[in-house]
Structures are given as structure tokens and as C-alpha cells.
């Protein structure tokens, strides 16, 4: 019965996916203003020195990257018209599009590429993106050669979307600290499909068509207005009334299901596989009880992922069996999924010698959560584990930093957590398991304090070869070991959805979704 239910959910997910896929072959039309919404004010608009989706959505319109991706994880030319990876994998030659200019009319040269990579390497929060880069050579204005200390397969994704914005050296190279540069939020000059008209905090970001965009004939839209609307209910009403035409990163299950029924709206889960947000139940592998893999596995058998998907997520997302996002080419679907089995879980604990007292309690544990959406999941775990004799105390935190402090200082037994893949596993996945990344005070490091020499080795191997088949093999084993030792129990990807009015054509569905240039979006 459970199997049938599961395949039904998958089938349903596939139907929705196809129903709201790329728009039919309708001829794109030029012109018009797209009013969309984002959920918070970004710190500023320069993705080279600020990560995160709120900067990424306007940032990828303002700044072009070297590469862009389609919906099938295939790299496409963008500012780089072509690229060649050397035999030994130690250098990558980038050939730039000729005649491309920044919004201020100055040409884009290899100097800007070298400067951008240096700036990102020095300032971006994800050091692994360009860590192996030793130098960027600029033999001529249209050629850049990236020198590497080892083959670096993550480089391709790290050169796309918001991860490598090409920023003008003549503006940001003036000696000021790039992180606090005044031009990050005012008079921003990039080379993307849209130019900045106005950035008003807590109100809106207005973008207008870049007439000299290097991709000829694009973009279709005259203007994009990104309205900053924090309240989920208000955003839903604005989408339903047509006041807002598009909104991404929506994850309130009830609102998503309500909008699915609205005949004026398209609701799509496409466009989030690269950002790859995965939710899991993390264990402190140095905890008194949770250091025992038997305990962790018994807990996994008692926590019913399918129940959470149905009752809490209301069918808006599917299962994730590993910490790699199910949309990634490296996802290994064949690992143990720890389906609900209370008897087995009890037997495992009995066999391991965890005796229950007169009240049926074997031992107590705590579970933490750091944000409101995680509360129902944490609360569900309490009665679920009672069935196997674990007395769970749910610990709430006043806000995110309070939770982050506890978890990053390893003062927890179990916690609900949500970590993003950010493209290649080297960037967003390795950090969770690498034994070198057990760092007190750093949230989303290896806070489980998990360490396994073979896992470290597999990450090293998969992170230093450009052979995709080999990488798949390494990551398959990597996920196998993790499923076997279970430092964390993966649950499901965040149910991110893009809601768009049916009048919007070509709503972004590439792997980077709304954090990619919206130059092909049009209004019908």
C-alpha cells in the first residue's frame, strides 16, 4: 500500500511538472513591464560579494556571468562564447564574446574577468568555488586563461548565475573595500540584460532594458519591477489579484496548493535544482546517545518521512534520500530510505541494550529548530519517537542567531536543518561532511562533527576530476556510506515554487531558476 501511495505521489508530481513546464511555442513579444515580487530587501545588488537569493534575483539581471545553464544541467555560452579545458585539467581558456559592453558603454575585457574572479575569491562566502585558482592570465582582451592547482570540476557551475558576476574593474577596482562599495547599491553598472533605474529599500527595485545587451534581440521586456513584499499572505493576494505577475521561492504549502487551483496562475517547482535546498534531521554524532549509529538509524525508522510529506508539506515536495538534491545528476536514489518501521526500530534499540524504564522510556533527547516553518516537523518528532521509548524535548529558539549559536557550538542532540547545494556538490555539499570543516561557531559547517576517512577521500577524488562518470561513481559511494552511517537523516527538498501569471511567457525554468538572466521572459 505504501509503495502504491509513493508512486502515486511521484506520478502526481510528474503531472504537475509537465503541466506547468515551458510555455507552448508561442512567439515571444517585445515590450511591457513585468511586476514581480521578492521576499526581502537585499543588502545590496552585487552578487560578487554577497551571496543569497535576494541579491541573486536582481543581481543576475544586472550582471552577466561567463556561462549560463539550461534546464538539463548543460552549460551554455553567455559572456564566454566558448571555453576549452586543458587535457591535464589545470587550465581553462575562456573566449569572450566580442563587442560586449558594460551599461556605461565601456568594453568588457579579460582584465574585468580576472578582476572579477579575484574579487569573488577574496570576498565571497563560498571559498571552495575558486580556491584552486592560482592565477588568471590575460593574453589578449578577449581571452582569459584560468590557472588551477588541480582539476576543478566545480568551476563550470561556479562561473554561472550569481556565483561569478563579471564586474567592471574601472568601477570596483578603485581601491575601496568591495564588500562595502557604494556602487553595490547605487548606480550599479554590470553587463546583464537589464540596467538599474532605482533601488528603494523595503519598496522596490526597478530595472529597465539594456539596449546594448550583447545577446542580440534580447531582452524582450522593457522593464522589470521587483516589489519587496515580505508578508506571504499579501504576496499570495497580490498574485491572485494580478497586481504581481510572478514570484519565486514560494514555500508555504497551503498557499501553493491554493494557487494551483487558480486558473490564471502557473505554479511550477522547476528552477531550484541548482540552488538545491535539502531539509534533514541532523544528529550530533558526538552526542552521548546520538554518537551510536544504531540510535540514529532507529530514529530514522521511527520518523515517517511520507507522513511529513503528506501532512506537513501537503504534497508540495517529494522525498530526498541523501544530502544531494534529487534534481542533481549526482543524486543516488538507490540508498536505504529508512521507511517507517516501529517494530524494527524498537528491536534495534533492544538489541543494542537500551533498556526502557517503568514508564517505557529508554533515554531522553532534545530536538532544536531555528525558524517557524520547521516547528511542525520538530513537534512531530516528539510523539513519533515516543513510540520507540525516546523522550524528546522540543527546544525552540527566539530567532535564527540563537539557534545558529547552539548548533554551531555543538550544543544539541538533534536538529531540523536546511542546507543548500549551490550548484556543484563541491560548493554546497562537501561542507556538511568534511572532517576538516568541523568548526565551532560556524553555522552550516560540519555541525554534526561527522568524520570518516573514506568519505573525505571520496570528496577529494570527486572534487578533483573533470570526468563526470567517475564523479558520479564517487558520489554514489559517498551517498551510500552516509546513508549507512546516517550523520543526518535526509527528509525532503524545500518546496520552492515559482508562481507566475499565465500572461507571463518563458517563466525561468533553468536549473538556476529566477537567479538567472530573465532576458527571454515576455508578456503575452
Amino acid at each position, binding site marked *: 500500500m505504501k509503495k502504491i501511495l509513493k508512486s502515486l505521489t511521484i506520478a502526481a508530481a510528474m503531472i504537475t511538472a509537465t503541466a506547468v513546464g515551458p510555455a507552448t511555442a508561442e512567439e515571444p513579444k517585445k515590450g511591457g*513591464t513585468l*511586476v514581480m515580487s521578492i521576499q*526581502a*530587501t537585499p*543588502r*545590496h545588488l552585487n552578487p560578487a560579494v*554577497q*551571496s*543569497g*537569493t*535576494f541579491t541573486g534575483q536582481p543581481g543576475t539581471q544586472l550582471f552577466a556571468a561567463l556561462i549560463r545553464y539550461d534546464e538539463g544541467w548543460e552549460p551554455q555560452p553567455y559572456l564566454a562564447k566558448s571555453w576549452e579545458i586543458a587535457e591535464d585539467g589545470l587550465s581553462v581558456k575562456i573566449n569572450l564574446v566580442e563587442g560586449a559592453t558594460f551599461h556605461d558603454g565601456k568594453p568588457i575585457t579579460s582584465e574585468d574577468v580576472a578582476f572579477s574572479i579575484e574579487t569573488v575569491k577574496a570576498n565571497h*562566502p*563560498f*571559498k*571552495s568555488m575558486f580556491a584552486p585558482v592560482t592565477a588568471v592570465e590575460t593574453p589578449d582582451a578577449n581571452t582569459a586563461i584560468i590557472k588551477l592547482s588541480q582539476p576543478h570540476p566545480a568551476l563550470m557551475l561556479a562561473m554561472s548565475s550569481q556565483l561569478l558576476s563579471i564586474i567592471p574593474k574601472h568601477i570596483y577596482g578603485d581601491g575601496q573595500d568591495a564588500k*562595502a562599495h557604494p556602487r*553595490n*547599491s547605487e548606480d550599479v553598472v554590470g553587463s546583464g540584460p537589464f540596467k538599474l533605474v*532605482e533601488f*528603494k*529599500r*523595503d*519598496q*522596490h527595485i*526597478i530595472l529597465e532594458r539594456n539596449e546594448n545587451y550583447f545577446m542580440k534581440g534580447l531582452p524582450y521586456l522593457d522593464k522589470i*519591477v521587483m*516589489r*519587496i*513584499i*515580505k*508578508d506571504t*499572505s*499579501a*504576496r499570495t*493576494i*497580490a498574485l*491572485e*489579484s494580478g*497586481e*504581481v505577475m510572478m514570484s519565486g521561492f514560494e514555500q508555504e504549502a497551503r498557499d501553493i496548493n491554493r494557487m494551483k487551483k487558480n486558473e490564471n496562475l502557473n505554479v511550477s517547482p522547476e528552477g531550484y535544482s541548482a540552488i538545491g535546498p535539502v531539509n534533514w534531521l541532523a544528529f550530533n554524532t558526538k552526542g552521548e546517545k546520538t554518537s551510536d549509529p544504531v540510535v540514529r538509524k532507529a530514529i530514522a525508522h521511527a520518523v515517517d518521512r511520507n507522513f511529513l510529506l503528506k501532512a506537513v508539506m501537503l504534497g508540495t515536495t517529494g522525498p530526498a534520500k541523501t544530502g544531494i538534491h534529487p534534481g542533481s545528476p549526482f543524486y543516488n536514489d538507490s540508498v536505504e530510505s529508512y521507511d517507517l518501521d516501529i517494530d524494527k526500530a524498537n528491536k534495534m534499540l533492544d538489541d543494542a541494550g537500551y533498556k526502557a524504564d517503568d514508564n517505557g522510556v529508554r533515554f531522553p533527547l532534545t530536538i532544536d529548530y531555528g525558524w517557524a516553518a520547521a516547528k511542525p516537523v520538530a513537534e512531530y518528532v516528539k510523539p513519533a519517537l515516543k513510540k520507540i521509548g525516546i523522550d524528546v524535548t522540543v527546544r525552540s529558539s*527566539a*530567532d*535564527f*542567531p*540563537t*539557534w*545558529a*549559536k*547552539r548548533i*554551531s557550538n555543538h550544543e544539541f542532540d538533534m536538529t531540523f536543518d536546511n*542546507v*543548500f547545494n*549551490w550548484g556543484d556538490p563541491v560548493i*554546497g555539499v562537501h*561542507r556538511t561532511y568534511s572532517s576538516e570543516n568541523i568548526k565551532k*561557531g*560556524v*553555522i*552550516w*559547517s560540519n555541525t554534526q562533527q561527522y568524520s570518516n576517512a573514506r568519505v573525505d577521500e571520496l570528496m577529494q577524488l570527486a572534487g578533483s576530476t573533470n570526468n563526470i562518470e567517475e564523479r558520479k561513481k564517487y558520489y554514489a559511494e559517498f551517498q551510500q556510506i552516509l546513508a549507512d552511517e546516517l550523520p543526518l537523516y535526509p527528509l525532503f527538498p524545500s518546496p520552492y515554487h515559482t508562481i507566475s501569471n499565465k500572461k507571463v511567457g518563458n517563466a525561468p525554468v533553468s536549473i538556476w531558476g529566477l537567479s538567472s538572466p530573465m532576458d527571454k521572459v515576455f508578456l503575452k
Partner: protein
Amino acid sequence: MNLVIPVVQRIVYAVVLLAAVLVLNFSMLHLAPGDIADTIALASGGADADVLIQIRKDYGLDQPFIVQLARYVGSVLTFDLGYSYFYNQPVTTLIIEKLPATLLLVITAQVLALVVGVLLGVFSARNPKGILSYIVTFIALFGYAAPVFWTGILLLIAFSLKIPIFPVAGMSDVTVEGGWFFEMLDVGRHMVLPVFTLATIFLALYSRLCRASMMEVLGSDYVRTAKAKGLSERQVVMKHALKNSLSPVVTLAGLQFSAVVSGAVLVETVFSWPGLGTLALQSIIARDTPTILGILFFSALVVIIGNLLTDLVVRFIDPRVRGKT
């Protein structure tokens, strides 16, 4: 009417109070676990260890508490509220940028609530057992009991979605063209629902209070005298009773001045109104300490000034208070 002594006295109080507010707020925020580095990591989807260390160093968060406090108090003494970690902007600039929107919202709502509340209070006090009185009591209690965000969302569903006459969010529509008149009209359209929502709470307070105090006054001897000497009902109520029953209402209105910051947070969030409330919420979520402290300092200042003004107004309308200091 000697005003110099009480005013000077209150200014001295105010300075002491502000200093206490400053030190207490700073200490309390410091006690909370976690800091801006964590929230930057949150906004970024994670960050490497050395990035977090660098952020803490950049903002002086690696220094001992007493050094941080001394630095902050020192900068406030030179009228500098510091620099927002989150926005990389001076806090004063941020507050000044957001203030007009909040003032527009809160003052309009206050005036509306005061005028309508007093009128309703007077009418229902004149006939406390009448239908109107019960209706006023009901509306007032309902307005007071219903959570603001709920009222707001219901109004949005009713008047933005079902009967789409008002916009859902924001303060202005950037696509509106045609000069300042149309832009003003547009802001007005955006204001209706948030002002109404915010006014419902104040309205409840004022109408209840005005009703009670009016009833008390109407039963007093001098009103009976006024009636006895043959004045019309209207004259008695408007000239004699109203002026005397207003003093508690004015006091309360003055106290509500703090709502310039606090009361508007929820309404601003529901309607995406770009005011101080939204800024306060954002900076609390981001642990943007200088901005939170700046807003708290500013609201303390507003409350103190508001109380001072209330005192003066009450002295003006109620001669009995003038004698005391």
C-alpha cells in the same frame, strides 16, 4: 502659567532616561546569543569560517563588551547613531528615509481615530442605553480584540481581491505617471486600508474612554446647573461637558505617540508599508544592532517629547493641573 521650571525639570529627566535607555538596550542586545555574522551566513546560504571571523572583526564584535559599549555611547554623544551592518548605510540616514512614511500612516490613523472616536463616544454617552451606544461598544471591543494582522488580511481579501478597489501592498505604484497630483492620489489609494486597520485599535480606545468620561461629566453638578439655566442640550455637551471630558483622551493620545514606531510594525508588515516598523523588524531579524539601537533611541526620544507635549496640552485644557508641577 509658569512653564520654565517644569520644562527644565523634564528635560533633565529626559537626558537621564535616554542615557539609561542607551546602556540598557545595548546590554540587552549584547546578551542575546548570535550576531550579524550568523544572519549574514543565513542570507548567504552559509559562509566559510574565515569569512565569519572577518565580519566579526570588521564590525568590532570581537572586542570586549565594555569596549564596544564605550565606543557606541561615545559615537551617540557626537550625534552619530553609527553604521548599519546590514545595509552599509548610516543609521540616521535609514531612519530619516523611513520616517515620513510612518508619520504619514500613524498621524493620519491617529487623527482619524481621535475625531471619529470622540464623536462616537459623545453620541453614545448621551444615550447610553440606546442602540447606537451598543453598536459603538461592539465595534470598539471588536476593533480592540481583533489582531491587527488578521483585520489587515481580511480587509485585503475583501477590498483587494474580491472587490479590487485598493492595491495590495506598498505605498505607491511605480507605473503611475502624470505628475505629482496623480502620484499623491495613488499614495492616498494605497493608504486607505493600512490607515483604517491601524485606526481600528486607537478608535476602540478613544471611543470607550471618551464615552466613560463623558458620562461621568454629564452626571456632574455643573452640567446640571448649565441645563438648569436653560442652555440647549447641544451647548451643554459641546461647550461644557466635552472640554472637560477630553483631558483623559488627550493624555491617552499622547501616550499612544510611541505607536509611531511600535504600533505600526504589524500593519506595516502586512501592507508592505516602507516605514520605520518594517525597518525595525528587518534589523531585528538581521541582528543589525546599530539600526535596532538607533530606532529604539529614536522612539525613546519620540515618547519623551510626546509626553512633554501632552503635559503642556493638558495644562492648557485643564486649569486644575496648572497649579501643580
